[in-house]
């Protein structure tokens, strides 16, 4: 899909699924993460599906250890994977999240799923865009759902932006769509307004994904500032 069509979707639907132009960087990041996880779990697994099975059986203590993984240097690789698709958001100079977030959605561990929210509620600028990238195909309900723009706005209007009550996922069940199905090498770009989250699932395998945020430097930051973002010049970095 052409960038202008992706931009149109980002505006009209609130999200778009892109094919990462430089998938090799994603493969590198996945290998680094697997190595780090092996080191924590004292295993030697190079196959993502086997790692998903192992992570799916983890207890909270092991999960906490993985959550403390240091992800230094990975944002740069991930944004290179996004490559010329970053142009949907801005020019070459971007605010780029310093350290990406690793996400594990494990069956029966409620807290491992991302509760529904939008990015502005977390202190991100209205012009920050999230790039959500799974390390494997997403074929079930363990992935990420994103409400279409009009439904997100309707939800905010009816709940007064969750000022007093934050509805549970069960209460929102009629509104929450199915998780987006994706292939490894694809990513979801969604804007700060889009309501999104993950669901509890009953699969033995965990979902393993990573996400980074970026935005055009011509727009101001909000509560997440240079503690969270760095300035990144894609033009200066060879791909």
């Amino acid at each position, binding site marked *: 899909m052409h960038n202008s069509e992706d931009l149109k979707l*980002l505006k009209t639907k609130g999200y778009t699924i892109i094919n990462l132009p430089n998938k090799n960087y994603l493969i590198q990041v996945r290998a680094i993460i697997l190595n780090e996880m092996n080191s924590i779990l004292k295993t030697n697994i190079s196959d993502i599906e086997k790692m998903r099975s192992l992570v799916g059986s983890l207890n909270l203590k092991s999960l906490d250890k993985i959550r403390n993984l240091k992800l230094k240097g990975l944002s740069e690789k991930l944004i290179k994977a996004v490559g010329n698709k970053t142009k949907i958001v801005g020019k070459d100079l971007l605010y780029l999240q310093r350290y990406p977030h690793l996400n594990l959605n494990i069956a029966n561990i409620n807290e491992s799923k991302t509760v529904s929210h939008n990015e502005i*509620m977390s202190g991100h600028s*209205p012009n920050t*865009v999230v790039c959500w990238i799974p390390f494997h195909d997403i074929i079930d309900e363990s992935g990420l759902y994103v409400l279409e723009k009009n439904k997100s706005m309707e939800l*905010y209007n009816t709940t007064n932006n969750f000022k007093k009550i934050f509805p549970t996922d069960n209460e929102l069940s009629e509104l929450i769509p199915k998780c987006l199905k994706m292939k490894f090498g694809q990513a979801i770009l969604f804007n700060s307004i889009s309501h999104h989250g993950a669901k509890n699932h009953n699969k033995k395998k965990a979902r393993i994904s990573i996400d980074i945020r970026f935005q055009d430097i011509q727009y101001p930051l*909000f*509560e997440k*500032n*240079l503690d969270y973002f760095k*300035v990144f010049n894609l033009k200066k970095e060879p791909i």
Partner: protein
Amino acid sequence: MSILTIQTGISMNPWKIPQRAQQIIMDNYLAKNKKSSNLKTSSSIFSEHFSRLFMILKERQNLKTIVFTSIFQIPKSKSGIKIFKTLVENYELHFALENLVVSNLAELNVIIEELNISRKIPTIKNYNINKLYKLSKFR
């Protein structure tokens, strides 16, 4: 290798961080890296020139590492930046909030450039969420 932590005034645009909180952030950063500070000090809240820090550094030859709470404590003025840059000639600088280590001038210049870019556009101060939605170019 001795480590020094330094508190500054609470105003470090875009934030205000109380000095006690600054110390807690720096101590926590060091603890996470299995280190601790040998000396805790503070600088004048009315100057960007860290004169007290330089006085201490002159007397304590064993200091190798200086920990700051944030890169936003790097001076804004030309004269302040010029003096600050001399620190990297002899010391490793750590910035706790950003989890950054700077050990040479090139690395410090990258951060100063980031600060220059971000300081040109003030951060959003509006807390009306409906107005924030309207600020999005992706509406």
